[in-house]
């Protein structure tokens, strides 16, 4: 297997990286017990990349996604998002940056059951304030556009319960892209879907990626990691492996029979 070592802290920070993490630590303290969820993570993600983050449960991948998504603060280390240092922001500032820069896709879809498809997609847009506030016309344009991109524009007045799991996840993807975020973060997006719907959602993410979207996806399923063009493996709160798709392909060709 072709594996590149995780970059050392001394590695040159790429000023053009969409995401640049240096020495990220996250320690949880409960009942005087310290849990080191992330011991030292260095990670750069370039504009337009599709990165799969994998690792055994407890390796820190969900914590990493929470920090990437500005849902949680770091204990130590430097995180820059689109050039802006975000590790020391107040919770309110983090919320502002998050709402504009990040689109989330969750395992359980997290659609609200008593809001229609249209309202679910519109919801995060209504939380933009100040100079980022969107008027009703612009919100409508973005909602319709996002639903068209995921093939759900014919279901705007439906409720989540009237949709299949795969359709619900497509609506959740529309909600994530409607904000036109700099990056999409997906946490086990296929975890609640059968394999056919799982494949369909992965193909949708791949299409968005080809259209220019930057995507970081947490998955424990190697089949779905294959859709990404780079695979980051976490173990015990560190990046232990960082492989590009081409390297994986070469390794696969060298090691196994290619299936038709």
């Amino acid at each position, binding site marked *: 297997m072709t594996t590149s070592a995780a970059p050392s802290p001394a590695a040159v920070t790429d000023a053009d990286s969409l995401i640049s993490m240096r020495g990220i630590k996250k320690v949880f303290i409960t009942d005087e017990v310290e849990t080191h969820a992330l011991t030292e993570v260095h990670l750069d993600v370039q504009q337009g990349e599709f990165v799969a983050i994998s690792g055994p449960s407890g390796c820190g991948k969900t914590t990493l996604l*929470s920090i990437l*998504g500005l*849902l*949680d603060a770091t204990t130590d280390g430097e995180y820059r998002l689109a050039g802006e240092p975000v590790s020391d922001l107040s*919770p309110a500032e983090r*919320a502002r940056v*998050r*709402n504009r820069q*990040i689109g*989330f896709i*969750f395992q*359980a879809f*997290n*659609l*609200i*059951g*008593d*809001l*229609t498809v249209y*309202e679910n997609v519109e*919801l*995060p847009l*209504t*939380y933009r304030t100040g100079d980022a506030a969107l008027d009703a016309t612009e919100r409508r344009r973005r909602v319709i556009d996002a639903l068209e991109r995921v093939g759900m524009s014919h279901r705007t*007045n439906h*409720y*989540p*319960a*009237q949709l299949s799991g795969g359709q619900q996840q497509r609506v959740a993807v529309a909600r994530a892209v409607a904000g036109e975020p700099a990056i999409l973060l997906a946490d086990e997006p296929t975890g609640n879907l059968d394999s056919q719907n799982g494949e369909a959602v992965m193909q949708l993410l791949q299409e968005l990626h080809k259209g220019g979207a930057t995507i970081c996806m947490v998955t424990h399923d190697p089949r779905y990691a294959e859709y990404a063009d780079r695979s980051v493996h976490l173990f015990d709160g560190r990046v232990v492996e960082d492989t590009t798709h081409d390297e994986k392909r070469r390794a696969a060709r060298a090691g196994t029979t290619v299936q038709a």
Partner: protein
Amino acid sequence: MRSELDQDTRALGTAATPAPLLSLRNIEKGIRTTGGVTYVLRRITLDVAPGEFMTIMGPSGAGKSTLLAILGMLDADFTGEYHLRGHPVHALNHVQRRALAREHIGFVFQQYHLLDELTVAENLHVPLDYRGIGKSERAARVADVLDRFNMVGKKDLYPRQLSGGQQQLVGIARAVIGEPSLILADEPTGNLHSAQAREIMELFARLNAAGTTIIQVTHSEENARFGHRTINLKDGWMEP
């Protein structure tokens, strides 16, 4: 308008029984397949009085969640008659149904349905934003419900910083913030361990004692004991 409708429904019953909050007559739902029609619900006839705490039980696939979705007006693809406070739900268009549901119904879901990227307080704002309630009134109601649910200290936290039980507490707070007369709960403790589940059920019992009608779907006999009566569904039929 409403009192007229209420009188109409009262005239149908005997003088002693109060007008039902909701009544179902011969509700059926079928799904067309290549082999014909597969029925999910068959001839459901049911009255629920204001202030009741009713439980719907039955094996998986019996139609429980479908019935709850119809009661909540999230699913309008059925035949038969459904009246809520005298309003003929079966005859309303989707805009009217939505308005009626938002006026009267609050939902609690097994998976909480909180938005992970919004704080507790922001999650509580959501239903009010979709009910055309003014800004200062919204803020007052959120502050009030945070207080009633002992969550003031958690208002700026995100759902994933809370335990499952706390998340469901937020889920229930979000359901009651619209001041509904009816709460529909679909397996509200399905993701919780037993101590958390009991707390959630005790909260439902208190809300019910304060006048809110509750209909829950559950697999748990223990949860069902918090209600006044239980109906059992099997293969879409209501068991006598």
